């Protein structure tokens, strides 16, 4: 649970680092999503919902942390995997856009992968206990 929590918190922090650059202006993940919304670049309902959900990531990360402290592994794992999946999806979208990527995206992907690995470890452990 510690690894999943650490990965989620890492992703929460990385989300505020620069993910993309337009000219010399750097934007964090939230600013990029906001710009995409304003410029009507989000095609389809899924992209719209995903963009809205991204703004809830900090709350979800805090939720992972709280669930870990309260020893609620299912809740922590569910939230951590959701946040990580969302982070990876956004990273793919940003990477394939015309925006130049910045190190925040790499840190975000690494943190999301860590969170997913932590969740997988939790699942394996629980199956072993049974």
């Amino acid at each position, binding site marked *: 649970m510690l690894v999943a929590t650490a990965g989620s918190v890492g992703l929460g922090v990385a989300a505020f680092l620069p993910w993309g650059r337009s*000219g010399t*202006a750097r*934007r964090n993940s939230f600013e990029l999503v906001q710009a995409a919304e*304003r410029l009507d670049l989000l095609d389809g309902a899924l992209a719209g919902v995903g963009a809205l959900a991204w703004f809830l990531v900090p709350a979800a990360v805090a*939720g992972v942390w709280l669930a870990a402290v309260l020893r609620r592994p299912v809740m922590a794992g569910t939230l951590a995997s959701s946040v990580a999946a969302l982070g990876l999806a956004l990273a793919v979208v940003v990477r394939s856009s015309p925006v130049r990527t910045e190190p925040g995206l790499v840190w975000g992907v690494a943190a999301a992968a860590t969170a997913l690995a932590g969740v997988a470890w939790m699942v394996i452990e629980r199956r072993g206990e049974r």
Partner: protein
Amino acid sequence: MSDGGEAATGGSEGGGRPVDWDADLPDYVPPVRSGPARGVVAGGVARVVALLAAGVFAVVALTGTDGADTPEAAVERLFDALADEDVIGLLEALAPGERRAVLDPVRAVTAELQRLGVLGEELDLGGVHGFDLRVEGLELASAELGPGVAEVRIVAGTLHADVRPADIPLGPVARDLLDAFEAGLEPTSESTDLAAEPDAVIVAIEEAGGWHVSLGYTIAEQWRRDAGEPLPAFGQGVQPQGADGPEEAVRAMLDAALDLDLRAVIALTPPDEMRALHDYAPLFLDEVEAEAVEARRHTDLTLDRLETEVVERRGASARVAVTGLAISGTVDGEDGSLSWDGECLEWRDRYSHDRQCLDDLEDEGLPRSVTGSLESMLRVTAVEVDGAWYLSPVRSALDGSVDLLRLLEREHVEDVAELVSDFGMFFLGAGLGGFDFDDEAWAEERWAEEGWEVAPDDRGPPGAECFDEYERALGDEPDGAGPDDIERIHAELDACLHAGDSRGWSTGGRGRRDGAPGDG
């Protein structure tokens, strides 16, 4: 309970070792209180605070407004984005309705120009290489023109622009063309006093909860000042009147146009993208409508048939093709008709009757890119705003450009580039203006490089005699001259220009043949 306690009671350690009564006693450690530790409480509070802060962040981010807090801030954002070469920032600084109109077509045009080799593949949002812009000492002042509309004047400020043409992300075709002309590739550096034009204003409007720069309002306001018109009543101009669907919007627009009803035409343009037109139209509508009343006495046009098809739909916009059309009526007392069936255009008036089909044009040697362009001219873009459909003039024009570019292949552009290169001194000198082909110093330098003896001033513009001959040949051709005749004349011009290389003037560096000057 503690080491101290044991020592005080005179116990022994290590199996009977005698107690050293002179040794210093350990510090007193108070007993731990029962209940949650202070650290645990602090941690819990921190987590709850983090959760609340994250919630507040989400709410603020999701409900945040689009735009700046003041008109000046909106213009500052624009200049900041310009200085940062921040394309996203530039678009965000524009009014939402206007940026929506240009965004998709500009992306499509960029992609097409990259495909055709005009722009380089390396062009991306990481910055437009070759340009360095800096704005220094920017001071702005604003004044309200009306509710949600404000003019912003530049009181002070300097724009420094460094341009390095060699670094501009051009594609191979454009690069070859520039290389052919050696000119215009030197880095330049210029400073512009942004406050030099005291009458120039930038207009910002309040939209989507924030202030944005509006290109439409800026143009309209500049026109109003030049025309000496009073301020319009903002928000009380032409009321938008959309149609139920994109094809219905096309029909309504044609009906309004044939009825010479400019008010209805304007009402069918998007209220966001063309908000400025809706607001400023009352300044000229009365006069136009009075003229329309007069014109209707002599003109009566009817839309007999209209067939349309939505050929492309993307979100709230649709590209509508006119696949069939028939208009008949009277203009200045003379009857006439015009029809289009998707393949042939037929028109008839008192004096003539003609029919021209795309197949005929292709049979005559016109490439598909030309005949296809006729079809794209009969397409318009409709957009949905608040549930009603309007025809977007900006998007129609830009999408039409995209359609035209899509018809082209790289070899077409290369052919044009070669033509421009051959005829370049005239075309570029007149059209692009950025290359000093008639610049005397440049011409003399070029003359000296080539070792030519005749000064350019004595011979007129380079290649002038060929073009004179070309125009004469074209003028001598009978009206029925076919593509072969035109091709022959072009070939003669080409030969004349190339021969000119050895007669003492250049075709711009391309196609120059070996040989001593004066040989010809």
